[in-house]
């Protein structure tokens, strides 16, 4: 479905997404955001992510996970049990005319279902398959169990992160998984570029590798200078206290003044321009020798400052300082809202589109992160922000329509739908 009059750049692509999990779902979301037609295949009981919060108004339910709804806005859902022959046959029927199949299963079950790229190649020579797994399809860890924190650990991201006197911490948000989603989308686009020459091919994405490739080339640093990175607390580097995070009156601010002109500007902001002439702070070497003194001076100032005012005052002096906005402050950001960054999801997610708002369920929208990049108007129309998104589908909402359109026999469609209905009522009874 196109969201504007001019077709979006990926409008010609058709995707079937059989995956579960944040990483692959984010890849499919990117394609849908830029115009691709995405069919999500779910088990009759629904993608497990539907059961993961945060839930709209804290009410759990298969259509109330805001994470799921954001990731699947505008996609279609077909419910199929791929452990049954009719379910698997229906999926293969759906693959006609499809450009990309996204999956997140390990190799063995995929091969057992005949859904690996070599097995599909005869029937679908131009189909690109992308498999998003924790460790990739091959190698000694290929069957290992994983979570976001486990993968951050094995990608080298946990070891150097944390305070020196406490165990390291994984990142709070599931960053490596979303990063994997973007790498996957990139890999699929590369495969599409090569398709006229080589036909379809398999894209193998390992989250561990994506994380290791994202770790600012620490492995190369080790070979160049022999340093094993360790936890440096909230400072960017050990002992350089004018690079990092300091307490403010109402939170924390980020202070980065490694260059002399930046430090001079900071001292002026602090109302202590004379510190620029202080022997202790005049050269990079002396600043390291007197790092604790410098830290004391800076913190004595930041502690008294309102985070937001500090941020704007520093930026007015071209200092690359930051504050640490809460989620609320991000969604309320005057800058982001002026740019129309946030898209809007219908709050009645999963309801039929002709549902009338009632007193109990007023029609309203929920702001969600919007386009990660924009296309300027120029030779072609632009693609800018602040859009009303279609709702995410309820479980199997388009099963009948999609299978019928794919020429699945009416009797088979009816059988599959009956199976879906009974699985749903069993699920509801539990």
């Amino acid at each position, binding site marked *: 479905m196109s969201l504007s009059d001019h077709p979006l750049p990926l409008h010609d692509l058709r995707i079937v997404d059989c995956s579960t999990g944040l990483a692959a779902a984010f890849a499919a979301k990117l394609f849908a955001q830029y115009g691709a037609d995405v069919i999500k295949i779910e088990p009759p009981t629904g993608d497990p992510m539907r059961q993961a919060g945060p*839930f709209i108004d804290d009410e759990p339910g298969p259509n109330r996970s805001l994470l799921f709804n954001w990731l699947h806005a505008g996609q279609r859902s077909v419910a199929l049990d791929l452990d049954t022959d009719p379910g698997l046959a229906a999926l293969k029927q759906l693959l006609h005319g499809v450009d990309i199949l996204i999956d997140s299963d390990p190799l063995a079950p995929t091969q057992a279902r005949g859904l690996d790229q070599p097995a599909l190649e005869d029937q679908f020579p131009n189909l690109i398959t992308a498999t998003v797994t924790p460790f990739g399809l091959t190698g000694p860890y290929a069957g290992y169990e994983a979570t976001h924190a486990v993968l951050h650990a094995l990608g080298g991201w946990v070891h150097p992160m944390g305070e020196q006197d406490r165990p390291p911490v994984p990142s709070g948000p599931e960053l490596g998984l979303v990063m994997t989603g973007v*790498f996957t989308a990139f890999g699929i686009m590369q495969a599409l570029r090569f398709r006229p020459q080589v036909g379809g091919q398999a894209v193998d994405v390992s989250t561990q590798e994506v994380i290791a490739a994202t770790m600012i080339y620490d492995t190369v640093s080790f070979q160049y200078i022999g340093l094993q990175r360790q936890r440096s607390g909230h400072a960017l580097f050990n002992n350089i206290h004018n690079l990092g995070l300091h307490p403010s009156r109402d939170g924390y601010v980020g202070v980065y003044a490694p260059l002399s002109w930046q430090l001079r500007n900071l001292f002026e902001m602090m109302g202590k321009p004379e510190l620029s002439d202080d022997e202790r702070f005049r050269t990079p070497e002396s600043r390291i020798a007197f790092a604790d003194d410098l830290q004391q001076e800076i913190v004595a100032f930041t502690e008294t400052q309102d985070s937001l005012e500090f941020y704007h005052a520093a930026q007015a002096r071209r200092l690359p300082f930051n504050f640490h906005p809460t989620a609320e402050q991000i969604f309320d950001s005057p*800058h982001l809202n002026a740019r129309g960054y946030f898209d809007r999801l219908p709050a009645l997610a999963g309801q039929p589109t002709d549902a009338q708002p009632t007193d109990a369920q007023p029609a309203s929208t929920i702001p969600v992160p919007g386009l990660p990049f924009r296309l300027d108007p120029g030779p072609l129309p632009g693609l800018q922000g602040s859009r009303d998104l279609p709702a995410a589908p309820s479980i199997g909402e388009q099963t009948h329509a999609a299978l019928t359109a794919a020429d699945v026999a009416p009797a088979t469609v009816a059988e599959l739908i009956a199976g879906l209905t009974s699985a749903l009522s069993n699920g509801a009874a539990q």
Partner: protein
Amino acid sequence: MSAAPLRVVDVSQGWAGPMVGYMLAAFGAEVIKVESARYFDWWRGSPHPDAAPGDNRYEMTPTHNSVNRSKLAVNIDLQIPEGLALLNELLAESDVFVENYPPRVMPRLGLAPEKVLADHPHLVMISLPAFGASGPEMDYVGFGNTIEAMAGITLLNGYPDGSPIQNPNAYGDPASGIMGAFAVLTALHERDNLNAKDGSGGGQPAGRHIELSELEATIPHAANRLLEFPATGRNPERTGTRHPTMAPHGVYPCQPIDDIERFIVIACRDDDDWANLRAALGDPAWAQDDNLRTVDGRRAAHDAIDTHLAAWTAPRSHIDAMHHLQAHHVPAGAALSNYDVLFDEHLTERGFHIPVDHPVMGTSLYPAPGVRLSKSPVTADRPAPLLGQHTEDVLQRILHKTDQQLADLEALGVTTRAFLREG
């Protein structure tokens, strides 16, 4: 359509912008990195007062040498009119133009996006300004670490009773860089589709300017926590080593290696994982407590569980403990140091570390791009170019400059190789 390799002109610096070109170069694009001798990529290091022409000190940073692999480096001073003209000659022969300066910089150089697209309507140009090219904070300055913070990520890292903790990788940069690479391929897909329809393969001007605000490309990475606010009206909070839904979930000490601490992550997603963990530990008496059968019970007893798990992990190597727990299907991951990652058996067997011979630094192992294509392997993993290394090659081969023209450009200072110190 799209049979010819892409040609990319890359004037960006640091990480996010150069990563766009690197990801394209890794899969066969010809990426021309344009720097001036006065203002070269700051990831090479700051100009040094004692630097001499050909000085090796700008060829030695692991970061620059990693993210500029397989590129060509051309030395052009864009602040000289003849330099700008030369760049435009290159753009006329290219598919993609990458820059990542604050939005005021390119117009000042005569390279405003609308001007570039007017001159080169076939071109896909991408800009990666920190905060975007509109809005009240468009002129604010940022980099990977501050973008990470402004995207709400840093505040959610660390212990609930401690200070926020930065990611160890300037997260806004790679988040923006890989998104930029996807964005470029997306715009090229659209361009080539329109050209194919046109039939001539080059008739319809379908170039694009992509505006990628690093902040806006990074915010979605934290969405699984940030969405708590619009969903519930509450702000998400730091959980330290623990997890909002899994228990136990923690980071536990193991045997140090060469006096450097080592740790292991252990996570139980559900009751099955807990049963497997009990089995892996030999079902000790403390774990048989019925209260621990449910996630709520385990969360209530998390401190005690942590003590027991730490006692089990402490005498073990983080690698051995991981293999033992994984043999029982427990999600466990050794917290690898950069040294450990280099020698990790799984990454090694998959060929993740690629040897590259650099003229100054010798042969080192560099990370693969993180995506594998079964029929289009990464074949061209060449070393990062030395400053200005390919100036002659590119100007002769692509722009057909004569020796006299090259000498004239050198005399004008357009392609100077001397390192000038800026006051």
